[in-house]
């Protein structure tokens, strides 16, 4: 187990180092999420409900995550580096987990800007919304990373990832919006936690088959 976690840490550290050098994911996500919230601010008629604004927050989060996920395996695709990782004796699911962890880090950074920006443009953020965002992030990164690996092998990869990811993100949006707007969010937070657990297990178990040619 400690060897597995050491492999995950090694691979995640590599992804973070690559991002620090290339800055190809986080700045794009930051710009996108802020731009989206500004557009929503002007698109939403004045006097619109807080409920509608919360819905738009979730739209911004899902599409920002999608933007990051399209870049998740760029280095591995362009230089066939996935071969190098697959040749290594580590468990192949460690590649998925490391990539999901680094994507989670990038998404959290984007949200550290997005949530205050949302509070500035629309309304304050409560604890239930933050809890919903955290749980949604886990599900987005677990599912999104395995789909990004799947899409990277295809020809129409830029098209394939949104087509695969968005239908699977619908439960996340339902749970997230529900947790943000109802008085008793526990049911929705539980739903998000269940989604995370189920899809994390499926993604973990299926990654080896996704990357095997």
């Amino acid at each position: 187990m400690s060897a597995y976690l050491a492999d995950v840490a090694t691979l995640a550290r590599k992804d973070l180092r690559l991002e620090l050098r290339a800055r190809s994911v986080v700045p794009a996500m930051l710009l996108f999420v802020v731009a989206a919230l500004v557009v929503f601010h002007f698109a939403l008629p004045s006097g619109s409900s807080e409920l509608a604004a919360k819905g738009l927050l979730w739209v911004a989060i899902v599409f920002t995550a999608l933007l990051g996920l399209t870049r998740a395996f760029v280095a591995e695709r362009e230089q066939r580096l996935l071969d190098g990782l697959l040749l290594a004796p580590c468990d192949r699911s460690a590649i998925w987990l490391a990539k999901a962890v680094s994507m989670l880090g990038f998404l959290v950074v984007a949200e550290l800007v997005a949530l205050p920006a949302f509070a500035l443009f629309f309304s304050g953020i409560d604890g239930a919304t933050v809890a919903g965002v955290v749980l949604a992030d886990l599900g987005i990164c677990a599912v999104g990373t395995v789909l990004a690996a799947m899409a990277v092998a295809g020809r129409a990869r830029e098209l394939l990832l949104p087509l695969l990811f968005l239908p699977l993100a619908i439960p996340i949006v339902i749970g997230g919006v529900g947790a943000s707007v109802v008085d008793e969010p526990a049911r929705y937070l539980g739903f998000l936690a269940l989604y995370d657990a189920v899809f994390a297990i499926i993604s973990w178990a299926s990654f080896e088959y996704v990357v095997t040619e």
Partner: protein
Amino acid sequence: MIAARKLGRTFGVKHVIRDLDLDVERGSFLLLTGPNGSGKTTLLRLIAGLLVPTAGELDVDVRRERIGFLGHEPLVYRELTALENLDLYGRLYRVPERRERIGMLLERFGLWDARNQRADSFSRGMLQRLALCRTLLHDPELLVLDEPFSALDEEGASLLDRELVELRANATFVVSTHDPARLEPLASQRLAFV
């Protein structure tokens, strides 16, 4: 060490390898020759475990961590330095005395002075040398090399010649090349693709 029976691999409707029978004993040096697109790279990727057969059987009696694979791409991250790349693979392969081993290989392949340079500043020949360092880092028992001399200058090629002669006694080789004369003295088996 390697046994293939009626081995086949297709990509879509194209049969790249069909009904191949092959036995490679431990300590052998199998030389693969043939024109581009004849299936050499596909066979090497099958042996390395990067592809699965679509027909027949392939048994490679070596643990994954004891296989060294050199393909057409150097399999190094361009944004990382030579040292960082080898450290990454050294950690994943759990190479004992990793730093010493990395330093020794970088010295041997003439990359020590460039160890802190990012791989995207390397020439094609330097990348190939770095790829050879990566391939040999974990002291593999089975070396699967796809045109290892490509992009190497004369000095690099001579270096690799010496390295192959030295490794020949302790490792098993499967090597594809467009320059069979260079490797002929080392070869114990030959397979020509058409």
